[in-house]
């Protein structure tokens, strides 16, 4: 269902490698399963031809990898960015996390990526192979000789269902159109939670967060979490703990993590994508984004390089913390 094909990407990457524009390529490589695509650095055309993968499971946001990879190359590194990835790219540039000169960005169109957990919900476990077939996805499992055909639209990842922008906000070269910011309903779920009573909200989050196993995948995948040393790994921060010591730790972890990325989170959805427990972590980040939009005016992190994040800014007329709750009776 992706408009762009693997061959187009490989040929573009090979061209840039061969003509010396870049010295390596940050792309998707084959993992253990078809749906298990791994970010990989390709150094030669041959490696590209052998190992490069592009399918409906190439959701990984490469921006974050540039923090460590860009400085390691002698020349430029080629990175393939989907529209939503470019926002993270800009946000990282705003925070001086890598050198723009070391990166060559090829913007690629994205029709939305599939969520393997949704596939598994339909087909069950034991997936042997997955392949795209027009608007459908063919899934072969251990338990069935014939591939199961499912509609790609039915297994679209949540973040793609609620895609906020098809616009590339940063690129050196585009394969396809620049695209446009689109209307989305991404705050609907947050609003639904807000409309609940406090007890209901508590029950909702208790149910969700109780599944957290503190694997730190959300943090490790988040392009806003690029700290040299995370406060949760730092014995002097006072909140250090790599695994939960008591029942409160997960919530503290998720609140602090969401707070630390508030105003910097571009809503790329990596946290929820990588969560092995399927906790809707993006709903925490979106709450901050929605609040910030409502309190201080619309703000999209990463829209441009050099923007001042809302929580490191102020006006003398900002609303008072107490007024936050006076904005509507349904919020009680």
């Amino acid at each position: 269902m992706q408009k762009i094909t693997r061959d187009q990407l490989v040929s573009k990457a090979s061209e840039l490698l061969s003509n010396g524009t870049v010295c390596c390529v940050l792309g998707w490589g084959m993992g253990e399963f078809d749906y298990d695509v791994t970010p990989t650095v390709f150094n030669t055309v041959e490696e590209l031809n052998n190992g490069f993968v592009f399918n409906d499971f190439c959701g990984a946001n490469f921006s974050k990898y540039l923090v460590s990879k860009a400085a390691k190359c002698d020349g430029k590194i080629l990175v393939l960015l989907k529209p939503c990835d470019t926002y993270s790219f800009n946000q990282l540039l705003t925070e001086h996390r890598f050198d723009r000169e070391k990166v060559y960005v090829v913007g690629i169109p994205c029709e939305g990526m599939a969520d393997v957990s949704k596939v598994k919900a339909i087909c069950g476990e034991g997936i042997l192979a997955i392949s795209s077939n027009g608007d459908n996805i063919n899934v072969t499992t251990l338990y069935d000789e014939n591939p199961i055909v499912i509609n790609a639209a039915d297994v679209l990842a949540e973040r793609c269902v609620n895609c906020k922008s098809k616009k590339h906000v940063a690129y050196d070269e585009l394969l396809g159109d620049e695209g446009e910011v689109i209307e989305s309903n991404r705050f609907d779920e947050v609003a639904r939670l807000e409309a609940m009573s406090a007890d209901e909200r508590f029950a909702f989050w208790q149910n969700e967060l109780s599944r957290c196993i503190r694997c730190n995948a959300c943090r490790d995948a988040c392009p806003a979490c690029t700290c040299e040393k995370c406060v949760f790994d730092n014995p002097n921060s006072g909140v250090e703990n790599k695994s939960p010591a008591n029942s409160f730790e997960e919530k503290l972890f998720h609140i602090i993590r969401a707070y630390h990325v508030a105003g910097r989170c571009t809503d790329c959805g990596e946290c929820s994508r990588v969560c092995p427990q399927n906790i809707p972590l993006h709903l925490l980040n979106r709450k901050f984004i929605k609040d910030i939009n409502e309190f201080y005016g619309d703000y999209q992190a990463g829209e441009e390089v050099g923007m001042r994040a809302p929580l490191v800014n102020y006006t003398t007329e900002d609303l008072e913390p107490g007024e936050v709750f006076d904005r509507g009776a349904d919020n009680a």
Partner: protein
Amino acid sequence: MQVNEYKPLIVAFCCNWCSYAGADLAGNNRLAYPADVKIIRVPCSCRVNPMFILRAFQRGADGVIICGCHPGDCHYTSGNYYTRRRMAALFSMLDYLGIEKERTRVEWVSAAEGAKFAATMNDFAKTVASLGENKRLEDLRCKK
């Protein structure tokens, strides 16, 4: 037999220049407020890290209040403006997680407002006491 009255534990972060001085003034004027309120001195309300607040809740505080200079009067010119944004965002998030919003508060208390300090603390302590013990922040993970 005397019924053991529930006493909440309240942590108050006060900025050194206005609110801590306001608390001192409340003392000078012998304006009583519950001993449940324990004050931690910080140079400016903007020194209060959300981690401190969550840590207090984690360790059993029932309410946390942050006091700073009135907006525009910050000793450091802009610190309390940042506090205002940070706490608005954080408190809204805690509310979103279902934690009673009455457990958190930001109040601007000047060095001259001893009476306001005492009144604020009385009111806050009463509100928190009426909510009872803080359980939600502690047991969010463990389903009963």
